[in-house]
């Protein structure tokens, strides 16, 4: 399958009062045509910074893209001028933000916000843009789109606003849709509606999706491939079956074990990951997860692990899985698969 997006060796830092925060360090991944890729990680793991860098939404300064390439259909987005980049945003790449309450303009009608992109990028006339906007609202399941189009965001509920965001993001038929925690601000029953909508739309439009989330349940539901980030680095990637049934990185294993399963016995304690993530102003010299890892070895403290490829789909950064590691794969991996 064709690669839509290819991110190579991306590093981004922020210069703050305390020093340089190395928000993402040497991140490489790709997204293929029609694929849904999830980026999971805790707050501060660099997942949102990765998305914002792809969209070139990082404020510079304080942010600085230190190295790397972001290739969209072979074109390096990091080399484009701001003016050229504006033709990419909302056109080739659509984005859905976390909070539908604040990401819509409260002083513009919903219709105008959808039409804006259509007029700008596709040079549609006002009338044609309006027809298309009504179509889009209908597509995302908003009843009475003809009246709704001239209403303001405050007249919409949270779930409805997120539907509007999706309509805006998909207006110009982008080849890539980036959804940054699209359902975190919504209730579960509304979340189920939005996820169902995203799944349906993806099948219809064949748009590639990057879904950023911390909810592993959502990942299992709608994604094909999973990227696990920790402390600014990708620690493990694989298909969802690799990650959920055969996780190899102690962090991924730990994450899965720290969630209660619906069939979990009350007397079986949860297994938390002790400690908290490292400070990225002074990222650890070795593996970022070393201080919280039960299986850490000497080398983990001093040297950052290389990427080890386990199969065509499954790769990780962990010394335990390195071909020269003395021990075979840890026993913990089996327990973690649920």
């Amino acid at each position, binding site marked *: 399958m064709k690669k839509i997006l290819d991110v190579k060796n991306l590093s981004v830092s922020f210069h703050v009062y305390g020093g340089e925060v190395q928000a993402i360090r040497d991140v490489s991944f790709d997204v293929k045509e029609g694929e849904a890729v999830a980026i999971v990680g805790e707050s501060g793991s660099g997942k949102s910074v990765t998305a914002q860098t792809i969209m070139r939404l990082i404020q510079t300064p304080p942010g600085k893209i230190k190295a790397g390439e972001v290739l969209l259909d072979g074109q390096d987005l990091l080399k484009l001028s701001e003016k050229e980049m504006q033709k990419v945003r909302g056109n080739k790449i659509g984005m859905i933000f976390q909070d539908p309450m604040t990401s819509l303009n409260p002083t513009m009608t919903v219709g105008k916000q959808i039409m804006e992109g259509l007029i700008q990028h596709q040079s549609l006339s006002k009338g044609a843009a309006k027809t298309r906007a009504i179509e889009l609202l209908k597509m995302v399941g908003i009843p009475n789109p003809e009246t709704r189009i001239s209403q303001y965001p405050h007249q919409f*509920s949270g779930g409805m606003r997120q539907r509007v965001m999706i309509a805006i993001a998909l207006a110009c038929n982008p080849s890539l849709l980036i959804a940054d925690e699209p359902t975190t601000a919504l209730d579960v*029953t509304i979340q189920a509606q939005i996820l169902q909508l995203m799944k349906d739309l993806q099948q219809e439009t064949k748009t590639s999706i990057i879904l950023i989330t911390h909810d*592993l349940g959502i990942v299992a*539901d709608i994604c094909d491939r999973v990227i696990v980030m920790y402390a600014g680095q990708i620690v493990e990637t694989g298909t969802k079956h690799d990650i959920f049934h055969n996780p190899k990185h102690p962090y991924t294993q730990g994450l899965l074990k720290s969630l209660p399963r619906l069939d979990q016995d*009350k007397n079986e304690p949860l297994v938390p990951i002790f400690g908290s993530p490292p400070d990225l102003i002074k990222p650890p010299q070795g593996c970022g997860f070393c201080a919280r890892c039960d299986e850490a070895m000497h080398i983990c403290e001093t040297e950052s692990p290389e990427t080890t490829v386990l199969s065509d789909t499954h790769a990780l950064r962990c010394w335990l899985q390195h071909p020269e590691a003395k021990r075979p794969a840890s026993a913990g991996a089996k327990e973690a698969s649920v």
Partner: protein
Amino acid sequence: MSKPFIEIEGLKKHFDIGNHQILKAVDDISFSIGKGETLGLVGESGCGKSTAGRTIIRLYEPTAGSIKIDGTDVTKVSKSQFKAYRSQMQMVFQDPYASLNPRMTILDIIGEALDIHGLAKSKAERKRRVEELLEIVGLNGEHASRYPHEFSGGQRQRIGITRALAVQPQFMILDEPISALDVSIQAQIINLLIDLQKKMGLTYLFVAHDLSMVKYMSDRVAVMYLGKIVELAKSEDLYANPQHPYTKALLSAIPVPDPDFEAGKERIVLKGDLPSPVNPPSGCPFRTRCPAATERCAAEAPMLRETRPGHIAACHYA
């Protein structure tokens, strides 16, 4: 069930929001919690679960109903007498970033609780007690001189729990204590809460929207919708045999971190949004979104009744 420690009967909390409109945030709920038991209270935002918690601890004055602690109706006692009951019930708040005063040291944040209830006779005793409490929740006693910003989210939540524990309560209201925390930290806090409960025989009201965590934590679970309890049962039974259509939809909406399970799951996707609690639908509050609603549901409000042994639900057809 063990002897009820807290009994809530017909509790209502209505807010006058002007224009002669009344918002019925909590509308006639009743339940009891046994000593050492955990009752989970779940529902979507706006269903009244947090208001219920806050009304029980009298952060809000209840509009009607009674709250009995060990047999005494605390809604009848005066503010000054109520202080004695406050030390028996404490609350842990959702956002550990907003619920600790940034200008106070940890010693003073926790010490304040001791001062108010006169639990420390001298400065030295106050300090010693705070340090002891910090050790209990897995922090270091030396942390007492620091300020909240020096701690991570998980540590702050431990401080919030310490403050609640300081007055030796018997009952704690946990209002979404983990929803502001990262996944790997959530389990730490949950394990701490369960540990404390075992050691001190605490009674919990666990308010949350994360259904898998609620199931894990709670002995019994109550589901709220638009200010009313629509279903209440033992947690295993509620999850295995949900009776109310809302509970069924809620359970099927939780994404489970297992791709095989997700692939085989039939998800009930509810239509529409939560109606406004200012103007709730006639009859059954859930009927506007219910896939099985009939005319009877619009005409007649279903009462809570036992549909299985020890399992109550408010649905005509359960």
